[in-house]
């Protein structure tokens, strides 16, 4: 057990899994000698050499295409996309090939791949270093989508993703990389894909969120508590497949729900959660499901604090929902 940051936990997961399974290879831009621009792959090039920690030319379609070809052959590639904002040159390969390969080949060619990408705002990176585009991947059948919010989950979910037989988009909230620390066990453990986690128990309002917003929601919950509103905060952790039982269970209890995410509102994940709650817990609902989200604009550079959901905005929504 040691206290690690998220980026250290990710590094540990990669190091330990690569040590155990030599079919795991890493590919990405600047992940080798340089150790990754966020240092997630620090030391791995030195430990596993250039054949397993591969610095690629600057082409995301090459990274994903080549990783997919490797996986068809039997390897388990873990690709790093330097920023989620730069994944789109590979979008065709991800949506039309990666997500459909097992299906269209009648199960003959599964693609055992993890795509890691730092996501989200909060580092003053502007519209091309802050995007939260999980909706595109959640909407795509055949992909799994995972986003941890703390070091323990980061390691456990990454190990689970690496061992998962399906392609996993593993999103890392970059503003948490070094700002959140926590106990992380040495050695192997997994956090199962598909299970949400109740990070604060409560009775009056359920808040569903994930990634960096978990911490914003927890702070808002604390403030709401001071005002006499008991808030349950659920960290979804896995966005696809979704743990909708956990969502329904919580709403059955509280009758009120708020969804928080950084991604733009329209067709952000909040829309799906809201629709699911309507379908599965309609008679339990005592207030409209409220969304606190990024706005339907490109991510703003100098006003990022206005753009992002804040403790204040989440608290507002909790109060409004509780008082409905």
């Amino acid at each position, binding site marked *: 057990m040691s206290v690690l940051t998220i980026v250290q936990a990710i590094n540990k997961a990669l190091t330990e899994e690569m040590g155990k399974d030599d079919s795991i*290879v890493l590919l990405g831009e600047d992940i080798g000698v340089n150790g990754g621009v966020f240092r997630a792959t620090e030391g791995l090039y030195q430990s596993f050499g250039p*054949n*397993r920690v*591969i610095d*690629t*030319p600057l*082409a995301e*379609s*090459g990274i*994903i*295409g*080549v*990783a*997919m*070809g*490797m*996986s*068809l*052959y*039997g*390897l388990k*590639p873990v690709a790093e996309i330097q920023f989620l904002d730069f994944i789109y*040159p590979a979008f*065709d*390969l991800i949506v*039309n*090939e990666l997500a*459909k390969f*097992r*299906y*269209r*080949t*009648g*199960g*003959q*060619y*599964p693609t055992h791949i993890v795509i890691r990408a730092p996501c989200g705002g909060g580092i003053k990176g502007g519209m091309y270093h802050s995007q939260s585009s999980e909706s595109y991947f959640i909407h795509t*059948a*055949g992909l*799994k989508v995972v986003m941890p919010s703390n070091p323990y989950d980061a390691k456990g979910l990454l190990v689970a993703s690496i061992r998962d*037989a*399906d392609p996993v988009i593993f999103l890392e909230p970059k503003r948490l990389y070094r700002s959140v620390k926590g106990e992380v066990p040495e050695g192997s453990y997994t956090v199962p894909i*598909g299970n949400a986690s109740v990070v604060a128990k409560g009775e009056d309002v359920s808040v569903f969120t994930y990634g960096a917003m978990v911490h914003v929601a927890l702070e808002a919950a604390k403030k709401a508590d001071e005002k006499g509103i008991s808030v349950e905060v659920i960290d979804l952790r896995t966005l696809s*497949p*979704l743990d*909708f*039982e956990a969502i329904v269970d919580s709403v059955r209890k509280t009758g009120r729900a708020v969804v928080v995410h950084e991604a733009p509102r329209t067709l952000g994940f909040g829309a799906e959660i809201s629709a699911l709650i309507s379908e599965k817990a309609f008679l339990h609902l005592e207030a409209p499901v409220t969304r606190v989200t990024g706005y339907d604009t490109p991510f703003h550079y100098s006003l990022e604090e206005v753009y992002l959901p804040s403790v204040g905005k989440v608290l507002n929504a909790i109060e409004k929902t509780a008082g409905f």
Partner: protein
Amino acid sequence: MPTEMLQIVNEEGKSDSKLDPDLPQSELHKLYRTMVYTRAFDNRMIAMQRQGRMSFYAPCVGEEAAHIGSAYALKPEDWLFPQYREQGAMILRGISLEQLVSSLLGNRNDANKGRSFANAWGDRSLNIVHSSAPVGTQIPLAVGAAMAAKLRGDKTVTLAYFGDGATSSGYFHVALNFASVFKAPTIFFCKNNQYAVSVPIHRQLASKNVAVKAAAYGMEGVQVDGNDILAVYCVTKEAEERARSGGGPTLIEAITYRMGAHSTADDPTRYRRQEEVESWKKKDPIKRFRLYLENRGLWGEKEESDLWTEAENMVSEAVRRAEAAPLPTVESMFEDVYKEMSPALKEQLQDALTSRESR
């Protein structure tokens, strides 16, 4: 820099004896049989589509030498990444005619479980990666598989087929660049059939030809007469040896012609003249190879008509069996999206089953 297109057998079926690979008779017959089977298959599938028994088909008439000759140069453990117009390579490798038809029909016996439209053949056990419709995506996959083989210490070579149209895609460039940087044992096999649907090659690219593009990657590039199966075999063999011995990738441009329509949905009279088609009929790769065999005393009228009868019967038999198979089950529609069916998909399967029952 490639300056000349390699040809071994000319249009009269005469071979250049200095270049002829002198394949044994049995091998020559195997190649010719595969070509004829492929043509018979094409003819029949086009007819079936016209009869409304199939939604869509893209024939390879005229291009048989290019893909059969190249696939023949590889070993069974080498991996093929087809585009979609390589029926002959599929047949040569051993995908059964019935399987080819089942896949086109999307029936329950289809190894793709009825999920793939048109020419999306492949077979894991034969090291053929199923083609898909998006043009060019197979090219980087072939590079990745080759890099994996190299990493594993296997001597496997991979070959990606693609058309002249596909050379315009970003994938072509990205894949050739990766392959050259990582010295991947990959053969990039361009079937330049002069058209991408209606767009002729000179509006697709402005370089002298496709082969010269190899220079952009410090790679060997070679042009071959794609209607001369022996020439195709020889250049591919050379590329295969280079790849297998660690010499890296090769770009091959096979000059051929799409003698038929792009697909059963296409009407080529809208965009090309009949004289052009006629001029290429003289270069028909099957006719040429038959003349070669005849010139060498290895083939005659009798063998020819027997072979055609056999091929057509085999295709008919495959069609009969494939058409007898039922559609896939509703359950199978929800399988293989993931290894395990997700809770949401289980619900949706129930919905599909209920809806089907209720009306």
